[in-house]
């Protein structure tokens, strides 16, 4: 055996094997702790919910689907999530564009608003909306000052009172992905479009929108799915007439004292929401956008 062979042979054999083993061990140690945690924190509650849903006399699933308040709340929640999604995506896209093209003071103002909304809690923002919309709240004060209205407004705890607040709560989730893609897409394409004489509408439709469509969809999917679980804002601002699915579930547990029905509804809500997310994820590659 020559010197070169003696040096080379063990090195190649030694390097190949441990690296393959090492890679497997590495993946095991990196992936197992989170997977075990997910299993415990997700499967545990799901099993407990199934047990609880089956603990009553009747079929709690069928019973909850027969309950008119629940079915109503399902449609209401879906409608609410759809409206909030469309509104946040449209307005959020404008917001992101304005941050990209506005003068410096506009940029600062818009970024400031976005950061306030990201950094203060949903609770604080909802309390702000409450104080704004109370019969003699800040909104009434402004209207009175402008001589537009003299008697207290009957606005608080109505459907119309709930929407602006929810749109404001969800807006950052729609703005952030669109903003990232507006800032990031290729400017040369815009220049090319201008050189070839495309007007603003054509450029918008043929260059800008295709570049940011994916980001709009991921923001929208996230807002939709998160809106399905809305609880605090509709509770405080929408009142009893605007109960979301989450509100009904809470009522079943705490007022009606039907833990089995509440558990069945929770399973339906979680299952539905996660299923919608998974379908949207396969269709639009939402997770790839985020991770």
């Amino acid at each position, binding site marked *: 055996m020559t010197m070169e062979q003696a040096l080379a042979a063990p090195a190649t054999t030694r390097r190949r094997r441990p690296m393959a083993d090492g890679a497997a061990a590495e993946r095991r140690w990196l992936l197992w702790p989170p997977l075990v945690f997910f299993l415990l924190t997700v499967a545990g509650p799901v099993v407990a919910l199934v047990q609880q849903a089956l603990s009553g006399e009747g079929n709690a699933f069928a019973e909850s689907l027969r309950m008119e308040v629940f079915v109503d709340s399902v449609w209401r929640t879906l409608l609410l999530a759809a409206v909030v999604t469309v509104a946040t995506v449209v307005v959020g896209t404008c917001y992101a564009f304005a941050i990209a093209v506005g003068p410096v003071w506009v940029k600062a103002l818009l970024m400031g608003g976005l950061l306030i909304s990201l950094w203060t809690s949903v609770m604080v923002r909802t309390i702000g909306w409450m104080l704004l919309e109370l019969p003699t709240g800040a909104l009434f004060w402004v209207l009175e000052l402008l001589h537009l209205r003299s008697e207290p407004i009957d606005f608080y705890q109505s459907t119309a009172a709930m929407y602006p607040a929810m749109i404001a709560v969800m807006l950052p989730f729609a703005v952030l992905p669109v903003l990232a893609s507006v800032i990031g897409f290729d400017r040369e394409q815009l220049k090319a479009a201008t050189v070839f004489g495309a*007007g603003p509408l054509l450029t918008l439709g043929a260059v800008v929108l295709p570049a940011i469509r994916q980001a709009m969809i991921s923001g929208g999917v996230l807002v939709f799915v998160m809106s399905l679980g809305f609880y605090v804002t509709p509770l405080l601002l929408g009142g009893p007439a605007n109960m979301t699915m989450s509100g009904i579930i809470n009522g079943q547990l705490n007022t009606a004292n039907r833990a089995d029905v509440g558990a069945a509804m929770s399973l339906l809500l979680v299952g539905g929401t996660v299923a919608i997310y998974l379908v949207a994820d396969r269709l639009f590659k939402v997770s790839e956008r985020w*991770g």
Partner: protein
Amino acid sequence: MTDSPLRRSLGWYRLPILVVALVTSLLFYVPFLVVVATSWTETSYIIFPPDGFSLQSYSGVLNDWEWMDAFKVSLRVAGLGTVISVALGTLGALALTRLRSRTARSWVRTLFIVPMAIPPVAYAVGLYSVSLRAEALQDNLALLVLGEALLAVPYVFVMVSSGLSQADPALRPVASTLGAAWPMVIWRVDLPMIVGHMLAGAVFAFAVIFDEVVLSVFLTPIGVKTLPLQMLTASQEELSPQLTAASTLVSMLAVALLGGYSLFSNRRAARARRLSRKAATA
């Protein structure tokens, strides 16, 4: 940074876009300013516009054990939850870079993002029924911390993943060719590159957990409240300026900490850019 190509191609449509955005920003500013303004009223009830100016409700909050206890409970829950979610989210993001198969990668990605989609009320009901079956999990904050950590994992995962995607992919093979075992590669190659993103993820996770109210409605032991839960209870009773004073205080704290953090990280990023420019010209 002027974005003239985009500005030019939007043409006259720029004006309505700016107007819509500015009106929308009122949705962010106005409620917050109302909260701040009502906190300095001299009256013992909430009134807008505020009547006079005093800081009595601030001293009221700071001397009220109920509010201070809630604040401490929230700090503890958010601290523990953040540690767990940063550890798990970082492991997940690292594992993602080491998976070869595309399907495995896309499933791992989905798995680590999907907790964002879990409706908090339904999840809280599930955790609550777990606590009914396990004596050891009652009367303490363990389930609350675990549940909040799960909800915060996606934020850490997204932040750390974006950090890893900017890293030079050649460094890891180089390290292992030079004989570093995989724990060494993680410790000396990956972690130094993503420490900033882990910190950002931790800040995000902390803020998310600190603000989350629904899980604590169901999972706090009797007599124990987190700060958002205390706010929720107070907002369903007669509204007092103490509620808005506490809201203002916690928001100011968040703005100071997060604003300070982003200034700090911007400066770090600027220094890194300067150094790399210097290295490139040298």
